[in-house]
C-alpha cells in the first residue's frame, strides 16, 4: 500500500479514534508531508532479456531471452558456465550493486571484468512494462557501461526502440522499491537473509508491509514529546535555581517572588505583577519611597521674593504714615474749605479763623490752589503704599500651602515643620510675618531636601539589587510558561502515540498475516518431511528488541533456528522469507531472479522447491539459475511447466545459451516416450495419448495466445487469467489467432485454413479426449504424436 493510501486510511479513522480535537490536530501536524512519486513507466515490469559482455565469466556478448510474463524459466549450466554471471548482470544493470560485491575487498572488486574480453564490459536488460500505454509497448533497455577501472565507475543508458530516451535509471526503476522488494536472490545471499541481525530483517519486512508512514509519524511524535519533556525538566531545574538566587537578595519583591515560585504550581500572575512593579511590596514600601523622592517643598526662592516685597511695602507704608502725607491730606481738607469760603465771599479778604484782615486776597487764593494740588499728589502716594502692603501680605499668605495629606503618615516631623510654615497665614503684622515666613520656609526647605535625597538613595540601592533578579525572574517566567504550555501537549502526544501503536499493531498483523502464511506454506512445501518444523513466524518486540520470531521446533521441542537447522533448511528458511517479499502484491517487479537455490538441498526439498517455484510462477516471472539437473528433473517428473535453457561456456569465455525445453516439448517428450514403448497396451494408449498430446497443443496455443494478447496491450495478470482458464482447445486457439469469442466452427475452419484439414481433425480428437475416454481407437499412436508435434511447432512458430 502506498503512503497516500495509508495516509487516507489513517485520516479516515481519525474521527472515530476517540482522540480529542487537539490530539487529532497534533496527529495531523505530525504526519510527514506527502511525497509524490514520479516515473515515466507504470505497471508491473517483466524481464525480456539479459545481456552481458566482458562481464565475469562472459566474454563476447551473450543473451538470455526470457518470456516477459508469468511463468517459470530455468537456466541451467555447469559451475563456471557463466549462468551466475547472467544473474549478476541483471542485478548489476538495475542496481549497480550486487550482494557478491558488497563489503568485499578491492581485490575482489577488481575481478568483475572478463579475462578474455575486457575492453568494454557491459550488462543490460530489456524490460517490459505492463501499464505502459501505446508507444510504450516497446521494451525498455537498460544498459550499464563502464568508464573506469572500478566496479562502481559505471553509468546507465536507457533506450527504447534502439534510441536513448534520455531517462535516468531511476525514472525507469524506483531504486527504493528495488531495495524494498529486492527481486534478486543471489546464492551468496541465501545464507545472509537470516545470518544478518534479525532486527534488520524485521525492518525490511516491516518496510514491505508499508507502514513506514506510521513509524515515521511515531518517530516525529517521540521527538516532539522528548522536546516537551526537556522543556518541563529545564523549567523545573530553573525554578530551583531561581528560588535559591532570590532568597539571597534583600528586597521585599524577592521574598514575594520566592513565595510565588515555591508553591505546588507557581503563581504566574504574581510574578508578572512583580515584574511590572505592581506588587504588594511595591505598594507598601517602594511607593512611599517613590513619593518621598518626588516630594515638592514650597519654593524657597518665591517665598524669599514675597518676603522682600512685604518688607519694602511695609517700610513705604510706614514712611507714608509717619511723614507729611497724612498731614497733607488734613491740610488739603482745610485749604479746600478756606478756598470754598473765599469763593462764596469773594469780596471778603479777612480770615474768619484768626481775624487778620486783607490777607485772603486773590493772590492768596492762587497760591493756596497751587499748594492744594501739590498736597493732593503727596496724599495719593500714601494711599498706594497702603494698598501695596495689603497685597504683599496676601501674597505671602497665599504661598503658605498645607502639605499633602500622606505626609503626616509618612514623615510626621516634616509635616510639623510644614505646618509651622503654614501657621504664617495667621500673622497679619507685616514685619512679624516676614520674619516668621522667612525662617520657617528655610527650615522646611532644608528638611525636605534631606528627606528627598534619602528616599532617592534608598530607591537606587534597592533597584540595583532588584534589576538582575528581575531579569532572572523574567527568564524563569518565559521558561515556566513554555513548560506549562507543554504539559497538555505532552499528554496529547501520549494519547496520539498510543492510538498510533494500536493502529500499527492492527495493520501490521493484518498485513503480515498473508506474508507469514506464504512463508509457512513455502516452508512446508520445502521441508514437509523435515524433523524441524517452523511455527507461525511473526514480527515481535519493539525498539531495539524488535525481531522476526522464527519459532522452530525439533520433534516438538522448541529450539533456536540456527542451532538445529542444516544448511539446506537454513536456505529453505531464507527462501520462505525471500519469496513472499520479492513477490509481494505491491511490488512493481513482476520478475524474481534466484541464483542457485538448489545447492545443499536434499532430494525431498528439491521436489518441494519445484512446487514452490511453480506456485509463484502462476503469477510471477520466476527465473532460476541452477547448476545441476535435479531441479529440472523434479519439474519434469512432477509435470510442472517450465522453459529450460542451457548455458555452456567454450574456450575464451564464449558463452552460448541454448533453449532446451519448454512446456510444449515437455509434453511432447512424455507423449513420445509413452507412444514409443513397444509394450504399451492399445487400450491404455487410446486413453492416455490423446490427453497427453492435447497438453502439448494446449501449451503451444497458450504461448501463442500470450503473444497475441501481449501485442494487443493486455495486462499480464489478465493474460494469465485468460490463457489458464479451463476450456476447449478452440477457445485458446481463437485467442491465439486474434479471433477471441468466435464460435468453435469458425475457429476450426481457421485452423484448417492455416494448418490443413488434418490439423482440424486432430484438434477435434484432442478436444474430445479431455472430456471423455474415447470410445474409438485413435489409430497409429506414433502418428498421432507426430501430427501433434507438427501442429504444435507450427503454432509456436506463428
Amino acid at each position, binding site marked *: 500500500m502506498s503512503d497516500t493510501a495509508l495516509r487516507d486510511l489513517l485520516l479516515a479513522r481519525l474521527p472515530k479514534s476517540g482522540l480529542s480535537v487537539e490530539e487529532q490536530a497534533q496527529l495531523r501536524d505530525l504526519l510527514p508531508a506527502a511525497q509524490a512519486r514520479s516515473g515515466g513507466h507504470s505497471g508491473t515490469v517483466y524481464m525480456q532479456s539479459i545481456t552481458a559482455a566482458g562481464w565475469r565469466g562472459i566474454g563476447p556478448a551473450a543473451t538470455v531471452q526470457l518470456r516477459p510474463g508469468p511463468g517459470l524459466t530455468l537456466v541451467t549450466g555447469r559451475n563456471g558456465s557463466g549462468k551466475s554471471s547472467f544473474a549478476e548482470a541483471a542485478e548489476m544493470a538495475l542496481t549497480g550493486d550486487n550482494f557478491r560485491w558488497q563489503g568485499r575487498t578491492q581485490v575482489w572488486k577488481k575481478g568483475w571484468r572478463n579475462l578474455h574480453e575486457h575492453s568494454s564490459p557491459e550488462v543490460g536488460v530489456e524490460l517490459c512494462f505492463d501499464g505502459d500505454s501505446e508507444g510504450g509497448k516497446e521494451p525498455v533497455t537498460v544498459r550499464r557501461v563502464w568508464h573506469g577501472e572500478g566496479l562502481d565507475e559505471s553509468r546507465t543508458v536507457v533506450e527504447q526502440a534502439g534510441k536513448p530516451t534520455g531517462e535516468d535509471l531511476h525514472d525507469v526503476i524506483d531504486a527504493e522499491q528495488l531495495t524494498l522488494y529486492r527481486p534478486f536472490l543471489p546464492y551468496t545471499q541465501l545464507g545472509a537473509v537470516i545470518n544478518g541481525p534479525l532486527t534488520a530483517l524485521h525492518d525490511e519486512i516491516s518496510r514491505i508491509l508499508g507502514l513506514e508512514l506510521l513509524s515515521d509519524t511515531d518517530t516525529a511524535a517521540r521527538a516532539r514529546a522528548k522536546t516537551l519533556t526537556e522543556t518541563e525538566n529545564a523549567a523545573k531545574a530553573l525554578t530551583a535555581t531561581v528560588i535559591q538566587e532570590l532568597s539571597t537578595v534583600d528586597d521585599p519583591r524577592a521574598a514575594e517572588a520566592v513565595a510565588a515560585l515555591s508553591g505546588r504550581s507557581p503563581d504566574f500572575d504574581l510574578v508578572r505583577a512583580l515584574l511590572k512593579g505592581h506588587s504588594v511590596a511595591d505598594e507598601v514600601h517602594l511607593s512611599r519611597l517613590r513619593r518621598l523622592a518626588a516630594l515638592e517643598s514650597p519654593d524657597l526662592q518665591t517665598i524669599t521674593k514675597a518676603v522682600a516685597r512685604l518688607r519694602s511695602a511695609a517700610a513705604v507704608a510706614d514712611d507714608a504714615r509717619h511723614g507729611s502725607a497724612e498731614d497733607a491730606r488734613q491740610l488739603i481738607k482745610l485749604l479746600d474749605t478756606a478756598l470754598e469760603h473765599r469763593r462764596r465771599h469773594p469780596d471778603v479778604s479777612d480770615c474768619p479763623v484768626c481775624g487778620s484782615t486783607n490777607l485772603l486776597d486773590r493772590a492768596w487764593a492762587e497760591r493756596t490752589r497751587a499748594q492744594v494740588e501739590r498736597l493732593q499728589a503727596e496724599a495719593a502716594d500714601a494711599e498706594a503704599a497702603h494698598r501695596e502692603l495689603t497685597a504683599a501680605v496676601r501674597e505671602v499668605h497665599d504661598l503658605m500651602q498645607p502639605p499633602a495629606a500622606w505626609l503626616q503618615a509618612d514623615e510626621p516631623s516634616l509635616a510639623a515643620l510644614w505646618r509651622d510654615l503654614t501657621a504664617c497665614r495667621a500673622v497679619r503684622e507685616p514685619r512679624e510675618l516676614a520674619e516668621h515666613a522667612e525662617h520657617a520656609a528655610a527650615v522646611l526647605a532644608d528638611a525636605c531636601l534631606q528627606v528627598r535625597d534619602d528616599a532617592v538613595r534608598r530607591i537606587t540601592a534597592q533597584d540595583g539589587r532588584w534589576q538582575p533578579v528581575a531579569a532572572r525572574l523574567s527568564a524563569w517566567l518565559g521558561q515556566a510558561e513554555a513548560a506549562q504550555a507543554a504539559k497538555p501537549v505532552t499528554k496529547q502526544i501520549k494519547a496520539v502515540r498510543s492510538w498510533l501503536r494500536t493502529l500499527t499493531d492492527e495493520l501490521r498483523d493484518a498485513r503480515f498475516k498473508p506474508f507469514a502464511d506464504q512463508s509457512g506454506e513455502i516452508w512446508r512445501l520445502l521441508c514437509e518431511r523435515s524433523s524441524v518444523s517452523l511455527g507461525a513466524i511473526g514480527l515481535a518486540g519493539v525498539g531495539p528488541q524488535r525481531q522476526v520470531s522464527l519459532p522452530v521446533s525439533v520433534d516438538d521441542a522448541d529450539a533456536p533456528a540456527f542451532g538445529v537447522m542444516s544448511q539446506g533448511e537454513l536456505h529453505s528458511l531464507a527462501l520462505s522469507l525471500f519469496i513472499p517479499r520479492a513477490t509481494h502484491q505491491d511490488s512493481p517487479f513482476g520478475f524474481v531472479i534466484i541464483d542457485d537455490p538448489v545447492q545443499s538441498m536434499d532430494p525431498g526439498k528439491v521436489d518441494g522447491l519445484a512446487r514452490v517455484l511453480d506456485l509463484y510462477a502462476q503469477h510471477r516471472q520466476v527465473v532460476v539459475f541452477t547448476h545441476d539437473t535435479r531441479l529440472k528433473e523434479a519439474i519434469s517428473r512432477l509435470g510442472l511447466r517450465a522453459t529450460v535453457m542451457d548455458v555452456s561456456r567454450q574456450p575464451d569465455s564464449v558463452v552460448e545459451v541454448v533453449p532446451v525445453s519448454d512446456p510444449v516439448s515437455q509434453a511432447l517428450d*512424455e507423449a513420445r516416450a*509413452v507412444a514409443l514403448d513397444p*509394450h504399451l*497396451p492399445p487400450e491404455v494408449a487410446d486413453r492416455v495419448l490423446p490427453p497427453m498430446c492435447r497438453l502439448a497443443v494446449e501449451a503451444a496455443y497458450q504461448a501463442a495466445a500470450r503473444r497475441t494478447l501481449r501485442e494487443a496491450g493486455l495486462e499480464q495478470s489478465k493474460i494469465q487469467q485468460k490463457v489458464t482458464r479451463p476450456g476447449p482447445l478452440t477457445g485458446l486457439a481463437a485467442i491465439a489467432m486474434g479471433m477471441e469469442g468466435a464460435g468453435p466452427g469458425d475457429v476450426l475452419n481457421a485452423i484448417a485454413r492455416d494448418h490443413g484439414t488434418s490439423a482440424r481433425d486432430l484438434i477435434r480428437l484432442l478436444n474430445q479426449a479431455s472430456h471423455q475416454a474415447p470410445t474409438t481407437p485413435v489409430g497409429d499412436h506414433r502418428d498421432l504424436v507426430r501430427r501433434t508435434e507438427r501442429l504444435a511447432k507450427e503454432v509456436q512458430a506463428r
Partner: protein
Amino acid sequence: MTGLAHSSAPSGGLSTNALVTAADHLLNPPGSTTLTPGVRARAAAILLRLALDETLDAYWQTVSPRMTRSNGRTRMLCLQWYIAPSVARQWYAVWSGLSAACHHHTYELPPTPAEVRAWHQDVSELLRVLAAGKT
C-alpha cells in the same frame, strides 16, 4: 477394481505392507543392530521402492495386465490418466528419488536415514491414497 495395497506377494514372499513395515524396522531398529545407519537407509529405500513397484504392478494388473511389461516411466506417465494427476506425479517423484537412492553413485552420497524416513512417510501415504482413491 480390487484392493491393491494388500495384494498377495507376487515375488520375494512379502506383501507390500510387510515391505513397508520391514523398511520401518530398518529405519527404527527395535533392538541393537550391527548394520550402519547408511546401509540400513539404503536397504530401506530398496524395500520402499519395491513396495511402490509391486503396488503399481498390481494396479496395472487390474487395469491392463500388459502394462506390467512396459517400462517404468511409461507406467508412471500413464498413471495420471487413471488416478488423480497429483498422486500420479508424486508417485513418480518419490519413485525417482528412491531409485536414485538405491543405486550406488560414486559421485553422490548415500541417502541419509532422515531422507529415507521422509520417503517412508511418502510411500505409506501414496499406498493409502491409491487404495482409497480408486473410483
